[in-house]
């Protein structure tokens, strides 16, 4: 009986394992191994065991600066996409009475995502530039006399592009958990004299925690693992963790790039662990 139960649970696990082992575990082991190797400077790996790649990483102020820069973008993107995503989901779940219309509007949210990330990102450039639409409009209205340079090739531009790309990853899980909130609970609260703020604070937010946590995991891991948006939208004015080790690969410094990748993976796991600690997603979902 127990054996049988074992077998079925392994069977349930197998689809996940079939994906995770070849596409995550094995490559990760390769990268981990390479991170302890030495480089001959010409793309060759010297199979020794050395900690020098890690030592270089942890003793360099560059690492700290890169993580600070990347964390800054992560936190800002997370914050704004959470606010936007939460409000959109709240509107869809509680203000749109007709469920069919709700689903329709929800699908509408995904329409921009039919085009590629890159297109959506670079279409901000003609809007935000020195001679872009926003600056032109502000100049014509007489609100400014010099074009605002901070709009493009700046941290502002990076955050705008990220929020635009990633808000959907907040909307979907939050909408999903809000849709499952029993409306009678809200009615009961209203009847009992709760204010709108109380309902939000005591019912809606606690009961969409799992959605918020899932959305946060998506956003945080995507921003931490990306370098392209930073590169283009900051006009090369800022760097990112991944961007830095991509440059290592371009000069064939595989071991140091591997060490950076391992450190980033661990850092990301810690971050996700923290999110999961605050919200027990498993319990919330099976609720």
């Amino acid at each position, binding site marked *: 009986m127990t054996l049988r139960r074992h077998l079925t649970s392994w069977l349930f696990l197998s689809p996940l394992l079939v994906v995770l082992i070849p596409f995550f575990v094995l490559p990760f082991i390769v990268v981990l191994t390479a991170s302890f190797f030495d480089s001959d400077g010409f793309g*060759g790996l010297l199979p020794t065991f050395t900690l020098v790649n890690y030592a270089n990483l942890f003793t360099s102020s560059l690492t700290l*600066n890169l993580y600070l820069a990347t964390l800054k973008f992560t936190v800002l993107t997370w914050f704004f996409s959470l606010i936007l995503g939460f409000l959109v989901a709240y509107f869809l779940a509680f203000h749109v009475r007709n469920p069919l219309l709700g689903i329709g509007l929800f699908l509408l949210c995904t329409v921009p995502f039919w085009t590629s990330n890159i297109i959506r990102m670079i279409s901000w450039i003609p809007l935000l530039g*020195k001679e872009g639409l926003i600056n032109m409009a502000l100049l014509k209205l007489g609100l400014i006399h010099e074009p605002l340079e901070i709009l493009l090739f700046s941290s502002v531009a990076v955050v705008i592009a990220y929020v635009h790309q990633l808000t959907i990853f907040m909307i979907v899980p939050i909408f999903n958990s809000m849709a499952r909130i029993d409306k009678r609970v809200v009615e009961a609260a209203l009847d009992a004299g709760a204010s709108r703020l109380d309902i939000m604070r005591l019912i809606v937010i606690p009961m969409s925690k799992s959605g918020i946590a899932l959305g946060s995991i998506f956003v945080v891991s995507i921003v931490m693992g990306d370098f392209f948006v930073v590169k283009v939208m900051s*006009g090369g*004015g800022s*760097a990112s963790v991944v961007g830095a080790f991509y*440059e290592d690969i*371009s*000069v064939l410094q595989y071991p140091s790039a591997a060490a950076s990748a391992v450190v980033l993976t661990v850092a990301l796991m810690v971050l996700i662990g923290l999110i999961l600690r605050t919200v027990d997603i498993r319990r919330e979902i099976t609720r």
Partner: protein
Amino acid sequence: MASFRDDSKNSTRGSKKKETAISRRSLLKGAGAAAGAVIGSGAIKGFPTIWAQEIKDIELRHVGVSYSVVKAIGDQAAKDLGFKVTMQNLDTSAAINRFITQPNSVDIADLEGWQAKLATKRGVIQGIDISKIKEFDNILPIFTKGEIDGEVVSRQGISPYEAMYIEKPDSTELHEGVTDWATFLPQVYNADSIGYRPDLVGYEVTEWKHLIDPKFKGKAAILDVPAIGIMDAALCFESAGLITYGNKGNMTKEEIDFTVNKLIELKKEGHFRATWTTFDQSVQLMAAGEVVIQSMWSPAVAAVRVKGIPCTYAPVNKKNGKEGYRGWCNGMGLMKHLEGKKLDAAYEYLNWYYSGWQGAFVGRYGYYSPVPSTAKPFMTQAEWDFWYDGKPAPDTINDPYGVPMEKPGTVRDGGSFLERVKNISCWNTLMDEAAYMNKRWNDFKVA
């Protein structure tokens, strides 16, 4: 390295004039057919052992950056040679990684000098028997002997000549001086400098230090490909008299520190509006009025001008041991796994490159052929005068796809071919301290 110069030709053209794409293609076909008839016979003559029947199943995969590995050229080669040629584009970094980690997925590797050096060290390419290259003696001596017009070509960075020879077909070390075996055969090259808006800059730019003139605070940009961006920066600082380098193409740690610290200083003062990595980005920066001066590539300057915006390519001739262009050169290497009929076909392909069609094609967007003597018959007199001799264009000059590019009377910036190449003061490179330099470059980026 000129890294992400990809996208350059194909995508700028593609996006710019979509509606004319078809007519241009057919135009090209017509021209190609005529050209093919001329040289088709010549190309096959050298290889009587290959039977047309046997080669038609062969496929050569030519892999490299898009400004060098161009589909239109591959299509023409396939038509003339009778076997299949597939052109695959990657950025510089992806390309060298592919050659080294998956050498069997490539037949012809498109290499810069420094990449040829790496590929040789890693043993992924085989020596090219120069006796099988018909036009070898007509290749300009810049490449084969390291000199031009009796003058020695600069050896700062990794010059094509330095990377060109190995002693035996399977050597893994470069050889100083001419041998019978080449690592790669140069196929396209140019000299990079500064592009600027003459209407907004207000004076004629002839020195690199103008790029860091405080007058252009917030309106300047620099190339963000570490290995070559740092050389552009070095040219600026040397020009401003701040430092003298032993070898800009192979700096010491102290020189790297000085250069990057100076860049960080400039960045903190707000001198740079942006940095750019792709051809298109540099065109956009200039065309959208974001910057008025930046390090730039010759065809990018032309692309800005095609949009009707004045843009000049600065002639930065050498003076007092400073200034000069940063040269680059892409060539073709034969991967080690090539053998038998496929190797014969590869040699035939290399010979085709030197037969003129390709040289004329790249000439029409401002790059040069290593064998101008064969390219010349494929260009009109007007094209030759304009692109190579630096004379005023007697007629409207079209780009390779037939789009009008320069009005009659225009003179190419930087003067004649000889004047330009003789003023190359350093070559694209991979420094010994590349890992350290990269790290410091990232300090600049994150500052």
